[in-house]
């Protein structure tokens, strides 16, 4: 009997593998070779359009270690992740907890909430650049009415923060959607029971909702962190990496090196490093959260 069951199990597994194979082959074919090519390019000194490339092993990676602009771009990416994800997760939790309750106009509010997320990133960049124009921008004007006169994108002290805030404006709906879905899956009886035991709202959030929401929070955190490392249109349109190098995060530096300075080899090394950081970040976040 056992042997029969085993056979059925093996057969089922084999069928599954056979059925999965085409998808797996396509997936591997479209992801692995480009990565191998990227890594191979990163081992060369190679300029865009040059017929010859020189194999320099890890020369580009060694150069990267001494490149102050690269380290600046790494630090900026980490700051941006810290600021943007910090604001998005904390605010997102508060808003979605409120949205989880029944109130009048909830559907309309949810619909309006989605608008920034569905706007094309290029539109978001152009729109906020115009809003924040120091002399003619609407947001700058409104802020000036309450005594705030800041050229948001012209100062290195505020440019990165502004990018973080615009990113928050754009992606907060996604965070809220994720958290709202997570909250909806938590049985109401748990909160009601805690309430009956005398727990206040903060305690319910701290001891019931947050632990149960942890997997959703981790996944959201991961999505947003990786997304921010790859952020491009907003920076390209709003600051072009400036003032100076104040918003030149890794992704943008790799783009500039590859396509503006035509250093394809070094640009590949930078891009491969970004890829490795994304993988490490994912493994790190999932690993430390013990999410399985």
């Amino acid at each position, binding site marked *: 009997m056992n042997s029969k069951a085993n056979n059925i199990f093996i057969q089922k597994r084999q069928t599954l593998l056979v059925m999965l194979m085409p998808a797996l082959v396509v997936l591997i074919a479209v992801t692995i070779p480009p990565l191998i090519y990227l890594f191979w390019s990163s081992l060369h000194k190679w300029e865009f*359009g040059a017929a010859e490339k020189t194999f320099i092993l890890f020369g580009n990676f060694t150069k990267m270690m001494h490149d102050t602009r690269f380290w600046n771009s790494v630090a900026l990416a980490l700051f941006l992740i810290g600021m943007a994800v910090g604001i998005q997760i904390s605010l997102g939790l508060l808003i979605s907890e409120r949205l989880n309750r029944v109130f009048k106009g909830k559907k309309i509010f949810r619909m309006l909430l989605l608008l920034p997320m569905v706007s094309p990133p290029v539109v978001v960049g152009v729109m906020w650049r115009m809003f924040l124009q120091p002399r003619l921008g609407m947001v700058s004007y409104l802020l000036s009415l309450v005594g705030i*006169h800041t*050229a948001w994108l*012209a100062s290195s002290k505020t440019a990165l923060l502004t990018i973080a805030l615009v990113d928050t404006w754009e992606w907060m709906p996604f965070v809220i959607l994720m958290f709202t879905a997570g909250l909806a899956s938590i049985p109401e009886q748990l909160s009601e029971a805690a309430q009956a035991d005398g727990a206040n709202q903060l305690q319910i959030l701290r001891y019931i909702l947050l632990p149960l929401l942890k997997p959703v929070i981790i996944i959201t955190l991961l999505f947003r962190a990786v997304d921010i490392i790859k952020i491009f249109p907003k920076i390209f349109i709003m600051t072009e990496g*400036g*003032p*100076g190098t104040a918003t030149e995060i890794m992704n943008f530096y790799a783009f500039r090196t590859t396509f*503006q300075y*035509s250093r394809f080899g070094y640009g590949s090394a930078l891009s491969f490093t970004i890829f490795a950081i994304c993988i490490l970040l994912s493994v790190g976040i999932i690993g430390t959260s013990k999410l399985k």
Partner: protein
Amino acid sequence: MKKIGLWFLVTILFCLLVVPAQAQEWSWKKAAEPYQGQTVYILVNFHPDIEATLPIYKQFEEETGIKVQFDLLVRRQMDIKAETELAAETGAYDLMHMGLWKTARYARRNWAEPLQKYINDPSLTGPDFDLDDFVYNALRALTDKDEQILGLPWSTETGLIYYRTDLYEKYGIPGPPKTFAEMEDICKKVYTKDIPSIALRSVRGYGINMWSFGRYGGSFGGSYFDDSMRPTVNTEEWIKATTFYAGLNNKYGPSGIGAYKHYELVQDFAQGQLVMIEDAGPWGKTFNDSEKSKVVGKWKAAMLTKGPVKHQFSHYTHGLMIPRVAQHKEAAWLFLQYMTSKEFQLKRALLFGGGSVTRTSTLEDPRYAITFDFGDWGGINAASLKIASAVENPYFVPYNLPEYKEIGDTLGIALQNIITGDQTPQKALDSANEVILGILQEAGYVGKPSSQFGF
């Protein structure tokens, strides 16, 4: 002997009668006959002179039967697309934008088709095509170090000072500044928070802040390299130049000047929000357009100011080149020849106001001066171009190095950091100097005589 003499006479008669007759017979239609039905694909940037070209190029299609398809992109995106297409050798375009600092890069990669063979081919090139009529620096900008012509220019420009005549009158300023000292003096007198005195490009970039700042280093006596091609952009002269440039912007410029590119300068000036700007020649047309400008009739143009050491000009030339891998080279050459011809340049200027022409004959045509009489623009622009493009005024900026993009960007970052106050001039320029040294070392230039590179 008599027979040879007869043959000689016949040959001479043939040359005298038939060859000129053939030359006279040259026409666009005849030259284009073998290429009828082909489509010439062009990658070029949005530009006032291209806007002025679009309404009239159709006549070429009618005359030749060759179709022309423009692909217009914003400058930066176009630059990236162009180099990507060229590196990948797609052959998607038959004509592509060519500019002052692209010539050396394209020549190094052998991306551009040398044009001399087309120029010398009488079946493809009309007898009226006059190479010597191009503004000297405009053609030189598209000629490589081996004297190969890699592109032909359709627009050439130098910087101008645009100033508000009504506000000058209000503050009792007799006329535009002629020196940097006068420039600062006027800025002091006319500054108000509502309408600041001046704005200069701040945003980093080899083609953004470096386009206007490029001349300041030379005006203060600085140079990019020493005799052995080591960078010298952190000397006293450069510190003075960056301090002056940043000072004008910070003391007398608008709020948020650190994020200003040419678009913001032009927008603010056109909306009456600035007293002066220093920027490219073609904007005159915008300021005179009542749909785009609130200062029509209230502004004038002036020549760029002299520095303490030199009278340096900014410069840029836009052109088109035929990629080496283009699919319709002959048809492309015919359109390039047409678009840069004396007749077309004059027509474009007179009919649609694209004033930054590349033909000396157009600049000297009395009708040009009449058409562009507004705000002294036509005369000042032509006079500035004449000085800026003179043989004795070579470029100060190292456009002829393929690495200029990276060098310019590095210096541009330093300048923006100085303007925003993030770094002192000394610190920013020391850092830029070090990075540029690395670029030059990697290129193998350091140690070689700078005269070898034309400096």
